[in-house]
């Protein structure tokens, strides 16, 4: 198998694993609704995932108490379900950031040594 083919398989898996972390990071910047979140994630990370796959993740974050939701009506448009990060979500995100930084530094050192 060509290395490009292996990378094509590895990159989406690697990025998908980070989606929950990315969602919480985005929510920390402000409330957001599903479609906007999907567009923002694509724009910021270039992660090519089916937009619908975000919803099981958002549902899980809600059940875990990391986010709350609220429907808001929009003049001349469709109603939107906004997601808001909770204090537990912020606390979890702080720990995720620490883990991310430690992992990133460790791997970065390994990459530099290789």
């Amino acid at each position, binding site marked *: 198998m060509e290395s490009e083919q292996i990378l094509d398989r590895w990159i989406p898996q690697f990025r998908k694993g980070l989606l929950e972390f990315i969602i919480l990071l985005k929510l920390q910047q402000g409330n957001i*609704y*599903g*479609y*906007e979140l*999907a*567009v923002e994630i694509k724009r910021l990370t270039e992660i090519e*995932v*089916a*937009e*619908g*796959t*975000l*919803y*099981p993740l958002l*549902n*899980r974050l809600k*059940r*875990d*108490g*990391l986010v709350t939701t609220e*429907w808001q009506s929009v003049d001349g*448009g*469709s*109603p*939107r*379900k906004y997601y808001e990060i909770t204090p537990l979500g912020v606390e*979890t995100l702080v720990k995720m950031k620490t883990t991310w930084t430690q992992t990133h530094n460790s791997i970065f050192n390994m990459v530099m040594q290789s």
Partner: protein
Amino acid sequence: MTSTFPIKSETAQQVWNIFDRELIHKLKPLPEDERTDIRMEILSHLFESTVNNDNGSDTEEIRLINAISRLGSPEEYLDPLISDILLHQKASKGHPAAVLQSLRDSAKKSLLHGLMTLVLGMGYFWVIMLFIMSVMHIINPDVGIWYYPTGEISLSFSEQPDAMQWQTGWFSLIGIMSSSAAYWGLNKLLSYFISKSKA
């Protein structure tokens, strides 16, 4: 629904209706409130995606079909959503198959989960045992809790020599009520454990 999501072209409206019908069919296993919430969110996404990807050349129906395509296969996003919600609800309501499935899933995760599953599994075992014995006590009064002068206690299906039976007259009622309460408590604990273990 048309007024909530104002689709203009007739063909696009037909595509929209077909998608909506499939969505309603897929979400049927869910309770009404969850069903409405998910359906509205998916339709809202679809509408936003159709409106915001207007390049001026594609017709509304083409933009809608593209939006459905970007959303992905319904199996990919609805199946995990539905199974997750159903498992959580059934387990918290004490549905035996869901309880068993939750315990199985939990046991596979890690050593800590395995230990917690063992503790919960033992809890369910003794609660069900007590319930069965309480029902059997109605037919056979010898079934019950026996205690010895030495202080030892025994759960037994037959009369025990040199032992006194605990609450002979009330054992069935106390047993059925306490085992039902304990089953409810274990379901709540399992439900809490499921939600925490997803973090």
